[in-house]
């Protein structure tokens, strides 16, 4: 690498992208929050905000170092001590194209949203304190190492001397995962499955209607996720460059195709294209194109999106057949979409794409043989198995010690009130805080007497 000077355009783009990705987590809170019943909307959103708070701190303390510190052996883990507390990263490196701190921030928001994604599988029934403990442990022993495997590239200097050793999936295996199909979506998706198994089904699952209480929130959330995802994918180019632009277009078109795929599936199967289907199609398409966005042509992106829309629309029905209550379909959307996108690279890797050019490879459909395909499959399965086993373990230990599942009574009465002492909406007439302000109603004094205005008539 030739010595560079600070590239202000790229630095601005990375910082902007990091901010976009941060917005995805509140967007996810809306997307998930609208899908649960009104009595659990706040808890659903709080699980995302809780992850935002805790993972940011852990990332700065040791998470970044575990993911992007020098490898301590086998490409499995970064050295947690190297950048503990981000030490040494404040001073400017005169040869760097962008400040390391910009990269630290960009990767922090990835860690946050990966943890937040899991919460959709355990809606309405997880103790908030245990969710927070889980988030911290899961990020530390599942996400940080997996991010190292997938995102930490080995660096060499001009004389080809290795200056930094990265993770095994990125370097030894050479599987392509541009923005986190494995590290983020397969990882969170399968963790959601494990937690849904540990916590069990909600009271009344498949008996009571558990329909989404506010689909306008879901649509708003999906819109924010789509917007933020341009930072997630195009920002992963780590530069204001051609790769970022290719990725941007692929992200747009794959997502659009997935919406069409999901809606067509619903139209033919159920008779109506639904708004929840459109919002879900957005996320399914975004998930599937995430690993592949730098590796496929725009036509390849349309294929990936279209298939993702159909596949995920069918996959969300699996939980009823298999009997696990993955409440908001983290498995059907993130695990299935992530697997599809990751493996599709093996077929659709275009030799002209940014990744095709830099890896000097092409996929099965471009005559490149099965070489990249098996790498993709191994990478996907490794993350899947590691995350599933460890998440099950963490979940069971927490359930047996501090307790993970809410009591049945609290769950039926509503987790918002039980865990947060709040209710999401104040719309009823009789119990509303508007009551005292309405014409003709009287404010109630602390002693319980109704306070009357002085009689108008003498």
């Amino acid at each position, binding site marked *: 690498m030739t010595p560079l000077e600070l590239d202000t355009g790229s630095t601005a783009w990375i910082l902007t992208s990091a901010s976009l990705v941060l917005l995805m987590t509140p967007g996810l809170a809306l997307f998930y929050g609208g899908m649960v019943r009104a009595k659990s909307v706040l808890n659903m959103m709080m699980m995302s905000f809780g992850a935002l708070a805790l993972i940011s701190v852990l990332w700065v303390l040791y998470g970044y170092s575990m993911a992007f510190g020098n490898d301590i052996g086998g490409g499995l883990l970064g050295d947690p001590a190297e950048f503990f507390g981000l030490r040494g990263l404040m001073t400017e490196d005169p040869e760097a194209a962008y400040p390391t701190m910009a990269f630290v921030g960009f990767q922090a928001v990835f860690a946050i949203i990966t943890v937040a994604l899991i919460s959709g599988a355990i809606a309405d029934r997880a103790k908030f304190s245990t969710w927070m403990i889980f988030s911290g442990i899961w990020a530390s022993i599942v996400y940080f190492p997996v991010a190292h495997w997938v995102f930490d590239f080995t660096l060499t200097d001009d004389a080809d001397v290795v200056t930094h050793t990265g993770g095994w999936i990125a370097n030894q295996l050479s599987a392509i995962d541009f923005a986190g199909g494995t590290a983020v979506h397969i990882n969170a998706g399968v963790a959601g499955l494990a937690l849904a198994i540990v916590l069990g089904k909600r009271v009344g699952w498949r008996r009571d209607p558990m*329909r989404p209480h506010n689909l306008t929130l879901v649509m708003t959330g999906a819109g924010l996720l789509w917007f933020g995802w341009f930072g997630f994918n195009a920002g992963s180019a780590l530069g204001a460059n051609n790769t970022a632009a290719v990725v941007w277009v692929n992200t747009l078109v794959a997502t659009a195709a997935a919406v069409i795929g999901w809606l067509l599936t619903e139209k033919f199967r159920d*008779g109506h294209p639904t708004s929840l289907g459109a919002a879900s199609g957005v996320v399914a398409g975004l998930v599937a194109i995430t690993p592949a966005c730098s590796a496929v042509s725009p036509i390849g992106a349309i294929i990936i999106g279209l298939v993702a829309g159909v596949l995920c*629309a069918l996959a969300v029905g699996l939980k009823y057949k298999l009997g696990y209550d993955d409440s908001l379909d983290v498995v059907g959307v993130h695990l299935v979409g992530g697997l599809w996108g990751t493996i599709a690279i093996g077929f659709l890797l275009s030799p002209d794409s940014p990744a095709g050019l830099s890896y000097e490879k092409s996929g099965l459909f471009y005559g490149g043989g099965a070489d990249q395909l098996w790498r993709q499959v191994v990478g996907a399965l490794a993350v899947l198995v590691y995350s599933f086993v460890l998440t099950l373990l963490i979940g069971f230990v927490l359930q047996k010690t501090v307790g993970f599942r809410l009591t049945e009574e609290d769950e039926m009465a509503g987790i918002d009130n039980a865990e947060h002492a709040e209710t999401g909406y104040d719309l009823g007439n009789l119990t509303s805080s508007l009551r005292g302000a309405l014409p003709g109603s009287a404010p109630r004094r602390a002693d319980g007497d109704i306070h009357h205005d002085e009689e108008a008539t003498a």
Partner: protein
Amino acid sequence: MKLVTAIIKPHMLDEVKTALESFGIEGMTVSEASGFGRQRGHTEVYRGAEYTVDLVPKVRLEVLVDDEDAKDIIDVLVKSARTGRIGDGKVWSVPVDDIVRVRTGERGLDAL
């Protein structure tokens, strides 16, 4: 005196109200209600899963009337609330013992 109660489709409320006003009623009470009759609600589909929504939103409308007006008012209600499709609702009346106007203390027919 009679209490006439009608359960109607929410979107028919304006039409029913106008018809009652032109008939010349003095007042009414309207509240939101939910329930089902022979149509047993409807189904909604979320991510491919069907939910039967058996409690359908309705409007409950109550009018206190003089005995001799009761039959006519029921006719007005039925005529104005009818769409001819399933779920149009029901109208019934029950006898009322006593009525008091809270402000003045007037009783019976005077309170109507």
